[in-house]
């Protein structure tokens, strides 16, 4: 068998040499490749210019901050100054960007390119609210989900309703056969936006989030359930919470247990939760088992 494998291997290699290689090319005389112009990196080791000691040179005057910031630079350079810099630098960059001609067109061009995130940061920092339709359109194909975050930051009372409606439609459409599938990052961004807005979603849709293949989508769905239970007192969310308590990932089960810990005694005593907590003994993540037991006992103690 080994011999057969070796023979077949040789045959393959030989075949590749005969057929796979370009036989059409005439074996002409070998031509020497034209010498590459020596790059700086190569020549550096050969011809290293001798540096003159700078000790005698007078120390150059440092440019004042104002001059540095006023220097005409690409919009993306200003956008980078939003991170880690002082408020003063940030404000100067925003000021400079406001004076930039055709900025909106350039930002729109940058969406989906390596400058994508910087463009979104500029839209948010400059509060370019009239770019909302551009972002809503672009967000449909944005797999990073960041255009949704930017869009959420520039919503106005006038367009908020329509935008949230579009979000809901996108989330619902992807669950339908043939619907456009959103990336996990986009789904999480949309579910989080729904949670913050406190919108009522169809329980079937929320259950679909809680049983999604991506744990991040399930976690976001669970955060929505938390909001529905704690802020809107929607107790139909208890059944959904029970779904999360049986999640395959221990991180989601822990998150669900923390939501249970925040519930009122009355809500925790409901059958859906009590049935789910009865499975504590089967929990294989120790921390979750201990926590689950403590919640069960807390209920028992509170009830007597």
């Amino acid at each position, binding site marked *: 068998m080994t011999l057969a*494998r070796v023979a*077949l*291997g040789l045959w*393959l290699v030989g*075949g*590749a040499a005969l*057929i*796979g290689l370009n036989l059409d090319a005439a074996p002409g005389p070998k031509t020497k490749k034209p010498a590459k112009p020596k790059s700086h990196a190569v020549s550096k080791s050969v011809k290293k210019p001798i540096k003159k000691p700078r000790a005698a040179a007078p120390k150059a005057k440092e440019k004042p901050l104002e001059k540095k910031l006023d220097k005409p630079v690409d919009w993306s350079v200003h956008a*980078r100054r939003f*991170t*880690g*810099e002082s408020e003063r630098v940030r404000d100067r960059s925003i000021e400079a960007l406001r004076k930039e001609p055709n900025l909106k067109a350039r930002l729109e061009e940058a969406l989906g390119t*390596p400058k*994508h*995130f*910087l463009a979104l940061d500029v839209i948010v920092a400059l509060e370019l609210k009239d770019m909302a339709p551009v972002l809503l359109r672009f967000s449909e194909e944005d*797999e*990073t*989900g*960041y255009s949704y*975050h930017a869009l959420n*930051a520039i919503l106005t009372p006038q367009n908020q309703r329509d935008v949230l409606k579009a979000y809901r439609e996108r989330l619902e459409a992807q669950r339908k056969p043939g619907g456009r599938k959103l*990336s*996990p*990052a986009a789904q*999480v*961004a949309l579910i*989080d936006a729904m949670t*913050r807005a406190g919108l009522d979603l169809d329980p079937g849709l929320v259950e679909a989030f809680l049983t999604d293949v991506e*744990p*991040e989508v399930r*976690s976001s769905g669970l*955060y929505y359930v938390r909001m529905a239970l704690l802020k809107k007192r929607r107790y139909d969310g208890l059944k959904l919470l029970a779904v999360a308590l049986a999640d*395959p*990932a*221990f*991180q*989601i089960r*822990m*998150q669900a247990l*923390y*939501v249970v*810990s*925040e519930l009122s005694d009355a809500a925790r005593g409901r059958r859906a939760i009590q049935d789910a907590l009865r499975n504590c003994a089967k929990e294989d993540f120790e921390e979750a088992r201990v926590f689950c037991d403590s919640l069960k006992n807390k209920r028992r103690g509170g009830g007597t």
Partner: protein
Amino acid sequence: MQLTPFPPQRPPHPISPDRFRRRRPRARWIFWIFALGASYWLGYHDRKLKPIFEDADCERVYERLYGSESEPEFRVVFGYKDARPARFVADRYERLLFIQRLTGSCLGTDLACGFSRDRGDADLLTRSIVGPDGQRKTVRVRVVQPSASADDLENRKDPFQRWKSKRAEEAFLKGFHEAAVVLYNGHSRAGGGPDFEPPRLNPAESVDFTWYKAHEPGFAKVLDALKEEASARTRMLGFYSCASHKLFTDRVREIRPDLGLVTSSRLIYFSDALETSLETLNSLFSMKCEKGFRSALRTPKTRAGGARVSGFFRKSSAPGGSAAQ
């Protein structure tokens, strides 16, 4: 006079040069598909494919990194990425972008891709690569983040946030005992980081950098953890955070001069930090030697991160000796 009939036109030869030339590319494709299939069938994919290193030192570096474990772990821990004065906290989204890239399909020779997720552990991703000894290894990448939600104000009231912060900090500090590589992607907090909790605020409701600088709550824990003998398992520590080179390098070097460090000399933008940390993992999986590693951190995609690697390719005095021993 009898006219000779006009000779009928000869049909083209089935293997006329024209047709032959047209058919050749297709034949070539068929051959290659067949060859690939046959080699897969023969089990060539599972044969020992020992990587070729530029030099013995580089080979030793990777032998030490991967050790004798069949499942070496690489840990990426995100810090609490608040965006004060805004309420937005970004680390959940950044981690998800990172995971989307790791689980995405592979292009070219990239190896920081094609990972599978663990069903029972949402932070764990695995894939098979060929180790420095030519044996297949399953690399485990654990990606952890601390924020409970994207809203900083909500997180401060949420009891789940405390668990998330504690778990992320543990994942980072225990990483020195359990993982070959530990990477931090978060805020430097003026030298007080790594930080996995909602930030401490001053009376003006902004991050209290003075306090962080004076107390170094995160960095002191890192230094303590590095002093423990078991921390020698880790061969590389990465700080993808603002000005981390200036803030952290020297004092880590004092404790662990043999530790490879990836730091940034600049104020690092989040997408640059993501690209650089992905490229670091890719270089480690591809076992790039010093020159290749450094140039991978200077491509147009990664250059803006200003990342620099130091101490990782340091020539060791004890050839083959593992620091974990």
